[in-house]
């Protein structure tokens, strides 16, 4: 029985020549550009502990990760680089003088529905400026991203710049707890998208925050009176104080013969949490205010000159600090010193990113693919993940090719000795390649084979191999005819592979220390002295 063909896993790609060389060359070109800014290459393992990404990357990413248990340890394939590089920084580089500039490229994995430009294994190419502080570093990072795109010849991309500081300050001002803040930030993208239904998003967020939990799946034991709004516990708590209330609660429960046990939680823990929960305020109003604010922020997005004035007005209305706005303004002013002012830029303070660790300036770069810019889709993706992570706008051909920003808390969250400001970004390499392709750019040609060396008989092999090695030493790309099919079929092979020269080593050439060179384009043959061979081949056909 014939063996069944084994297929590749859905959402992954096989790169065959010349695609592999093209993609590698594109990656190298981007990284070479980063080196002009003093970034140096770094690499981290594909395998990490799951915990690394749960620390700060955001809860929802876990559901899209490849995780598995191997000998009782929970491991994962990295869904992005930043957390890994920061871990490496904390592990090895904390004593280095700041900033530490690192660039990287490699495979990353996310379990998402595959579509054009969105793969489950994709390549991130990016950089991190660890210790880079304030607008100066932000501007450099943004400029190096745009510069790298310019360097590889991409023209029609758009940059959207935001800053999480404004929204974070508002959330703190409204007294929304950390869990709620994280949730709202995670939903920011969905909330401010065109045609989003804010009420639906609000309801979903509130239910995720434990307000009016979804009761439509009928848990029969569920007693609606446990709902905080009708519970006497908050007033009890107010009257007796938390210690008193705990005593009352415990006493009542033991009278009701309700065993406060199960699993590994102690009765004290359970009562303490019950009271803590009862003491919480209903966050509905605050969350509503926050979502309203974000929608207004979104409406004020636009070109920097217009957006800044309008945003100042809004921040004043909410009594919010204008510092984040000043930071963006300063970063964009500096940015102009890097580039010749032709970049398509939008300022949008409602720009959220799929990953939780961002704290300051954030940005995304979009490309409109083969289609013209659809007016209605000004610069927004369908979710805020990194370029790979599912942001290709279905149908419109708009894809996010880059995302990044500032994450000042990450080093600390990963166990760093002190808090270190940092910022960076990553490109989705496959998406940049698709964008270039859509623009009809030349791309990066794979290195061609310069010459095919053919022994006439197997007796000529040692001589032919020696010759091939000499040519390789002269940096020529040499194919050697390992199949020993004879001169005629070797010539046919060279023709089909468009190899410009064939060098033939036979007995006579061997004795005369010469070689026959056939120019496949002009279909001419010359007897050439060994000494002149390299010069001739370098001259090209």
């Amino acid at each position, binding site marked *: 029985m014939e063996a069944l063909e084994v297929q590749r896993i859905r959402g992954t790609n096989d790169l065959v020549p010349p695609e592999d060389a093209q993609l590698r060359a594109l990656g190298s070109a981007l990284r070479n550009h980063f080196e002009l800014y003093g970034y140096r290459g770094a690499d981290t393992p594909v395998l990490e502990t799951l915990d690394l990404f749960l620390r700060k990357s955001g809860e929802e990413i876990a559901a899209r990760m490849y995780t598995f248990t191997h000998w009782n340890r929970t491991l994962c394939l990295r869904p992005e680089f930043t957390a890994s590089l920061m871990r490496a920084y904390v592990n090895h580089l904390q004593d280095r003088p700041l900033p530490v500039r690192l660039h990287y490229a490699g495979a990353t994995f996310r379990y998402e529905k595959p579509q054009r430009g969105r793969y489950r294994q994709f390549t991130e190419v990016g950089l991190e400026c660890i210790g880079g502080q304030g607008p100066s570093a932000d501007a450099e990072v943004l400029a190096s991203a745009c510069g790298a795109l310019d360097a590889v010849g991409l023209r029609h991309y758009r940059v959207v710049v935001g800053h999480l500081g404004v929204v974070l300050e508002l959330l703190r001002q409204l007294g929304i707890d950390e869990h709620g803040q994280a949730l709202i930030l995670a939903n920011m993208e969905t909330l401010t998208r065109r045609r989003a239904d804010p009420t639906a998003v609000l309801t979903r967020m509130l239910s995720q925050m434990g307000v009016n*939990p979804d009761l439509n*799946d009928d*848990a029969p034991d569920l007693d609606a009176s446990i709902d905080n709004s009708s519970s006497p516990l908050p007033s009890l708590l107010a009257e007796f104080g938390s210690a008193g209330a705990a005593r009352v609660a415990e006493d009542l429960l033991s009278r009701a013969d309700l*065993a406060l046990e*199960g*699993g590994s939680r102690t009765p004290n823990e*359970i009562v303490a949490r019950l009271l803590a929960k009862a003491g919480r305020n209903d966050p509905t109003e605050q969350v509503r205010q926050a979502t309203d604010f974000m929608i207004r922020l979104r409406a004020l997005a636009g070109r920097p000159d217009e957006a800044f004035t309008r945003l100042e007005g809004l921040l004043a209305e909410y009594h919010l600090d204008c510092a984040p706005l000043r930071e963006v303004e300063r970063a964009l002013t500096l940015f102009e010193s890097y580039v010749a002012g032709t970049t398509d830029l939008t300022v949008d303070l409602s720009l959220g990113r799929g990953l939780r660790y961002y704290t300051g300036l954030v940005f995304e770069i979009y490309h409109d693919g083969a289609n013209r810019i659809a007016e209605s889709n000004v610069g927004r993706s369908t979710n805020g993940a990194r370029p790979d992570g599912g942001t290709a706008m279905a149908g419109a051909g708009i894809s996010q090719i880059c995302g990044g920003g500032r994450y000042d808390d990450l080093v600390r969250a990963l166990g760093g000795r002190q808090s270190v400001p940092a910022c960076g970004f990553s490109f989705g390499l496959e998406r940049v390649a698709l964008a270039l392709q859509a623009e009809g750019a030349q791309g990066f040609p794979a290195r061609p084979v310069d010459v095919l060396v053919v022994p006439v008989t197997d007796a000529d092999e040692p001589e032919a191999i020696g010759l091939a090695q000499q040519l390789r030493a002269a940096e020529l790309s040499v194919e050697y005819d390992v199949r020993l099919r004879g001169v005629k079929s070797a010539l046919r092979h060279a023709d089909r592979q468009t190899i410009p020269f064939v060098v033939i080593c036979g007995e006579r050439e061997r004795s005369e220390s010469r070689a026959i060179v056939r120019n496949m384009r002009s279909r001419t043959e010359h007897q050439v002295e060994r000494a002149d061979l390299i010069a001739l081949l370098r001259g090209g056909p």
Partner: protein
Amino acid sequence: MALPSKGMEEQTLDFLRSCGLRVSRTNPRQYRATIPALEGVEVLFQRANDIFSKVDEGSVDLGITGYDIVREHRREEDGTIMLLPALGYGACALVLAVPEGWIDVTGVIDIAEISAELRSHGRDLRVATKYPNLTRQFLFDHGINYFTLVESSGALEAAPALNAADVICDLVSSGVTLRENRLKRIAGGTILDSQACLIGNRAALARCADKLEITRHLLELVEAEMRSREYLSLTGNMRGDSAAEVARRVTSRADVAGLRGPTISQVYPKIGDEEGWFAATVIVRSTLLLKAVDALRRAGAGEVSATPLRYMFEQKSWSFEALRRHLNVRAEDE
């Protein structure tokens, strides 16, 4: 075709019998049988858990098993097609249940908080389950990231009491077992609603016309039988001048005038009785039974009889159409 032994066996046989697909075996302890109405079909009785893998690997072509089992064991691009996801029996739900004593817990959000709280004390929330894939995805989807799955095939309900786990994810039908083990369900804690379902092996159905035809036969009968449960046939006798005039009276109420309209036939009275009687027959949704009876009364019917339908065929079997489209699309892909 594989049918579940134990657990769902009786219900499955009843279900098939009601569809006109009596399973015939010489002795109830035998693991092989036939369905006389489906020629060429051999029936194998298997454990519901094994049926999915048998169908998936293609050692049997069709199978009835639990929807929960299929969802837990499915892979992308596997060899299985879901033919009918809900056969209307064997209902249960995969739910997250916590100890009754956790009085601070009412919803899934509480579990997320507790998992984070335990983590900050260096402990992991332990979740006992026989459904690791569905459970893991559910927990991740609900922001519960710190947990250890305790895979257990024994009595899960006892795990929290034995301190082998904190919470469990298990199948529940009535909830009695949970209560007896001092566990409770929580809001938003339903991972999956499940019932018996019919699955098939993709390659077998795509390759073999005979098997596809048998599948069509099966789907037609099952679908028509399940649809027929929603309808009743009502017949009322009433006086009238003509069939057309009776029809006008009956159709004046559109919602109970039958699917396409009433069938009116003449009643030939016993000798000596008055002439001019007609029987109006309409097929109505069972939920509209009394409304329809009232409407027939208002139209002049004295007595109304209601009969269940055996089958209710539509223009075509929609589930078979879906299957054929699915197989065609794949054929074009390849």
